[in-house]
């Protein structure tokens, strides 16, 4: 029994150790690792990648439209007995004065010899004559019949249909590439937002936690001083101010803890890893190139996925218009046909006017196919022309929207950057003030109770605002890069 318990305990300890090891191995990502991970594995990106492959296949189809089109038919079946009969012999005693009753060939006469005889009479013809023919002549299988037929059409000139289809497929491929880039850019932006959001919220929790513990300490000290000689002349108002500052800090703490949970959840969804976490590098400003807004606008025209997709969509609409126009015109091609058929138990009558069950043939022809439903096609052409113009107008409209988006993203980043500078300076001054008050307190020179509260509040307020500004600066830069397609 004791051994069993020991074994169970060992097993439990081993399991716990394994569980612990699992937690210790939880992936922590640097920003670069996180971006690489989501770009490679996020389902939205995978879907876009598959859609790109589908577009590549469509282009491949369009490129093969110049290849011969056609097919091969083959069949094999049983064949009935349809044989040539020898003509009636007029020398024989006549029971049939009209000599209408044919005779079978003697045994050993070949199919070719039978057919060479004219094949005027067949057993099938005599089917109706139930006296001499029977069901046996048609129903049972007397041999094998097979047929092979090959038809090919080589397009020679399609009045631009194939070129238009190729152009549209190329545009489709570009659009799919743009979609993949957009999917990647979206997930990269979301990853950056989750990363910086988590860094910021954790830093804010630390700062507020620090602030709360300091405020609690001061409240105790002031309360104690007021119960004693109170050389600093603290008032109830000073104490109340500190308590209110404490509640404000605690409210802030609740809020940033919520932000930690949200950012963590976003990170874990993006990585599809319930244990995913980020590295512990410091929340700091990402360096940007400090370019003018015109730089980003130019970059967007070249690199933004949506701009590429709009160009591709306009091109595709243009080619669809061309295709619809070409579809009103004929196709010219070279048709090739090859036939071979064989039926072992069927004799063919040597007549050009009859279809033969045994034969070999081939044909080559220059063919033309022209549509006749011109009315319907004219309607389609008008629709494609309007779609082409509408797409171009939409492209211009969307490019205008992108420009506004870039201007807004740029302005937001500038604002966050400037706010970061100002709050950094504000934090510095507030820290200096807070230290000066502390120096006064340490030297017994502290005279103004309110100053401690205000200096402390200003310091923690600016620290938090500075952290927020750094995160905003990084996230707005990420969004600016997203809107311009620059990495």
């Amino acid at each position, binding site marked *: 029994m004791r051994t069993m318990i020991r074994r169970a305990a060992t097993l439990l300890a081993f399991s716990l150790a394994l569980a612990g090891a699992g937690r210790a191995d939880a992936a922590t990502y640097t920003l670069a690792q996180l971006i690489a991970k989501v770009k490679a594995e996020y389902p939205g990106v995978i879907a876009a990648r598959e859609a790109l492959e589908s577009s590549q296949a469509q282009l491949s189809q369009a490129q093969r439209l110049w290849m011969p089109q056609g097919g091969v038919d083959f069949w094999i079946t049983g064949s009935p007995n349809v044989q040539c009969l020898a003509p009636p012999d007029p020398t024989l005693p006549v029971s049939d004065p009209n000599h209408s009753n044919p005779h079978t060939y003697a045994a050993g006469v070949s199919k070719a010899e039978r057919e060479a005889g004219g094949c005027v009479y067949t057993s099938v013809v005599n089917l109706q004559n139930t006296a001499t023919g029977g069901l046996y002549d048609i129903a049972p299988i007397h041999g094998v019949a097979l047929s092979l037929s090959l038809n090919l059409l080589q397009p020679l000139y399609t009045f631009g249909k194939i070129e238009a289809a190729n152009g549209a497929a190329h545009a489709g491929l570009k659009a799919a590439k743009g979609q993949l880039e957009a999917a990647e850019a979206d997930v990269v932006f979301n990853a950056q937002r989750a990363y910086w959001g988590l860094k910021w919220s954790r830093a804010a929790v630390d700062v507020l936690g*620090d602030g709360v513990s300091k405020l609690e300490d001061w409240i105790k000290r002031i309360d104690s001083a007021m119960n004693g000689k109170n050389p600093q002349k603290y008032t109830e108002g000073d104490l109340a101010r500190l308590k209110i500052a404490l509640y404000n800090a605690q409210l802030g703490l609740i809020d940033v803890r919520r932000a930690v949970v949200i950012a963590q959840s976003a990170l874990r969804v993006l990585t599809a890893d319930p244990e995913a976490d980020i590295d512990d590098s410091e929340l700091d400003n990402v360096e940007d190139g400090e370019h003018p807004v015109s730089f980003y606008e130019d970059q967007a025209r070249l690199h933004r996925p949506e701009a590429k997709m709009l160009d591709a969509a306009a091109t595709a609409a243009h080619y669809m218009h061309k295709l619809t126009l070409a579809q009103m015109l004929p196709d010219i091609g070279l048709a090739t046909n090859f036939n071979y058929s064989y039926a072992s138990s069927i004799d063919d009558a040597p007549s050009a006017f009859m279809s033969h069950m045994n034969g070999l043939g081939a044909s080559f022809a220059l063919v033309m196919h022209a549509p006749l439903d011109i009315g319907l096609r004219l309607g389609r052409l008008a629709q494609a022309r309007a779609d082409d113009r509408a797409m171009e107008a939409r492209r211009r409209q969307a490019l205008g929207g992108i420009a506004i988006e870039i201007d807004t993203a740029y302005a937001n980043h500038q604002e966050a950057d400037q706010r970061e500078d100002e709050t950094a300076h504000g934090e510095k*001054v507030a820290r200096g003030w807070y230290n000066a008050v502390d*120096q006064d307190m*340490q030297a017994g*020179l502290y005279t103004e109770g309110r100053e401690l509260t205000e200096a402390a509040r200003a310091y923690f307020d600016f620290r938090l605002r500075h952290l927020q500004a750094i995160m905003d600066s990084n996230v707005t830069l990420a969004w600016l890069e997203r809107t311009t397609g620059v990495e």
Partner: protein
Amino acid sequence: MKQAILIACVCVGATAFGATALGPSATLKEKNGQVNRLLKIKPPKGSAAEKKQKDDIKALASTLLDYGELTKRAMADHWDKITSAQQTDLVTTLKELIERNYVKQLRSNIDYKVLYKEENIDGDEATVHSVVKVKTKGRDTDADIVYKLRKVDAGWVVWDVVTDEVSLMRNYKSQFNRIITDNGFPELLKRMKDKLKQDDDQNAKDKAAKSGTKTADAKTGAGGK
């Protein structure tokens, strides 16, 4: 953060020893190393070694920070209105307050790094700019510290430390002026001495409480278990 700035001041304080031939920045850099070495010693709390460490730091600070000049400039016009004895008393009291404050921070185990920036020398006056990088909760903090030095026979000594745009000397100056204007110089000195007494009382209380706990622990047999 506060601790880092105080330590930075202590670092400044360490520059006076044999610093005659060195310039202001070089003096600060060399002595920073000495203070760091001193701070690396972690004697047991309340031990003789800890007392010695504190005394060494105080000695460094008292030799380096020019308390006389700091007090004189902080007093401004009031300096000449008090007697020589009062001047000496004020300098001694302020020095004791500042030194105690420095020493308090010695065991705080803070993680910091000092980066020296530009140095400007104008005759016998100099300023040295530096940045103290301190590990703080949430995000590391960079504090700008400007040392104002003057040349004396022993070398360069610091008479003001401007931390994050707040001058130690000007801060004292405004407080001194406010108290002297409202209540006179004796009140200023009284407040400072009261603070020293208050700290002494607090230390005595803490010591008594600690020995009380030890006694109680010894009686219950819980101490040190």
